[in-house]
């Protein structure tokens, strides 16, 4: 398969994962780095079982030094798009990266557990666990005003 063909099939998912992890701005940068890497190393990558997962990790590595601790996910709905809880983005940022990426890939962007697991190179049950824990944390964070610790 050509690299172009591979990208056509997998680019959306790769970008989705990196945007879920790091937000649109950094996520796109990470995806660009990963795709460039893929161009250079396609000879080696095409023989791997999961080149998309590998490129996802390339994207992660390229961007981590630049990560800001908070405020990289969009906090307000874009004009014309449905509203969502303002506390959601900050709450998502308190999740671990894997929890956030799993929750956003599956529940915000509609990817299947199978696709998410392949991208993150973990088992489906692991993704399920991350989602479960991530949702629990979100639920608890978003109810925080009603609850005094």
């Amino acid at each position: 398969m050509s690299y172009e063909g591979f990208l056509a099939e997998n680019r959306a998912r790769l970008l989705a994962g990196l945007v879920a992890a790091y937000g649109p701005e950094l996520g796109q940068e990470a995806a660009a780095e990963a795709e460039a890497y893929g161009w250079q190393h396609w000879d080696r990558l095409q023989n791997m079982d999961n080149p998309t997962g590998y490129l996802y990790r390339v994207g992660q590595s390229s961007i981590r030094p630049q990560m800001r601790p908070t405020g990289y996910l969009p906090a307000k709905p874009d004009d014309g798009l449905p509203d969502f809880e303002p506390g959601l983005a900050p709450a998502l940022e308190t999740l671990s990266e894997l929890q956030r990426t799993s929750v956003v890939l599956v529940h915000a962007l509609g990817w299947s557990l199978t696709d998410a697991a392949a991208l993150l190179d973990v088992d489906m049950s692991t993704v399920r666990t991350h989602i479960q824990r991530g949702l629990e944390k979100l639920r608890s964070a978003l109810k925080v005003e009603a609850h005094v610790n």
Partner: protein
Amino acid sequence: MSTDPTTTPSDGSREPADDALLTDLRSFGLTLEADLDTSIRPTATPAAVEAEPRPVAVLSEDRPSDRRRPARTVVWAVAAALLVAAGFGLGAVWRDRSGSIDSVGPADGNTEGGAEEGGLDEDPAEDTPDESAGPDGDDGATPQSVPAGPTEIVDADGEVIVTVDDADSNDPTVDLVVDELLREEALGDMGRDELADLLAAGGLQIETTLDPEVDRQAIASIEELYPNDQGLPSEPGLVVLDNETGAITALSSRDPSWNGLFNEPRMTGTAIKTVVLAQAYLDGFSPNDVVRADGPCSFPVGDDDAEPLTVGGSYGGAQSIEAVTRSSNNCAFVRLGLIVGPERVLELAKALGLTMSLEEDQLVSLPLGVAELSAIEMAGAYATFANDGIFEEPWLVETVLDADGVVLYEHRSEPRRVIDAQTARLVTETLESNVERGTGGDAQLEGGHPAAGKTGTTSTFTDAWFVGYTGQFTAAVWLGQPSDPVDNPNGLASIEIPDWSRFGGGLPAALWGSAMVRLHEDLEPVPFIEPDRVPAALDEAELLEVPGELGPCGNALSEELAESPPTMLVDNDGDGEADCFMLDPTG
């Protein structure tokens, strides 16, 4: 609006609030995409890499992970063996074990193989190999002598972990092995130096119980939950014991030089409370007995001049022993320790393999975990509760063979009963409730495997623990810094890791849970045995009294002391003025 994901978590755990959250997440996803020039959804048209728009993206087929597929060679070996067994009788298969499986062809083919093995006509019994044959000889000849040389320490699969060719080896695995060989007097009564020399030149083979698969699973969990790409100095480590045998099946950490830490004493923090708990149950207290849980609390220490021990981290009035375990309430446990007697707790700890030496004036604070213990010791103590009160010292050396393959030493189990089964089951019940509803919540396992355990957090945040067990395994997870840092005297508190990690209930518990889920994947759940019911032993009024307990702060207010941080001023009588102060353990 996008379609619902096709495979949402299907464990039926939906609550009404979930729907609102999921709806918000979907809306959030739309906003996330809004800045991009391409869609990032499964059914969308991908951005054009080529000039024309392409049809709906076909996702690449998901292939099962390689690690789930049996290795091809194993599959063929099994198939070949079965064919041979069917065609030629078991004797031929047995005889063939010394050769390569490839030499045996399919039943309808390989007459050459058939002729060698004797086919159906030969008496299979004649093919049984000589039991006394050494590893090289399959014909009963005397074992060959090989020149002595370095010693190989191998894992449970026979793969070499470390080769010892130097008597001064600093390798931590070697240290552990040497410690155990000395302890067991495995090779006779010899000193450490002599043993080290023997290893370096004796050409021994030391077979351990370390299971590389368990290690792989543990490392996978660490990689997943604590990638540590910032290169922080704190790293987690796991010790895994097999409950049935007491064998150490894993000493897992990403830093190979870390192995020594499993044997290096570190402050246990509040994971030691379990020993206080056990002593209380031994004395006949019930999980429903009530102890005073409020804080801060102060207790006299040693003689009159000594600064009293003042403790925070405690909330609530009178609570049951089970409840204060779930919240790891410090004051309640110091009180409980004083009620049952710290010296007796110390004795029980020793019986559980915990070698603590505490000064007289440290006994009061024993439940707070100032004593230092190793991860291996902690796992061994907790495994006792998993094993209904029977203690076995954790071990990893299975056999020692000399250069000729002669067995010099084989491990012999020496379990001993330390507490009665009922007490062990009561402790288990309380620790199980701690995982279900207490600070150990992140350690819960899927698949119906019951789990019992206790967090340990030190007041200096230098060490964070989770120690627990299922029916099959006991594991201790420790997070901290491998070396005593001169540059980093405040330990974990001074480095930027997520707050979540500093407490035993955070990363250590989650790591424990994750590793245990992997280890139990193909196992049937083993339920814990329930204890008999124990009614409350004492009147509430009796248990509330702790001899000698001081008021909320043992220290009188003094300006000088009040200024040296970190301190917390306490207003005892609610008149708006500080009456005393206590050190603020959270820094």
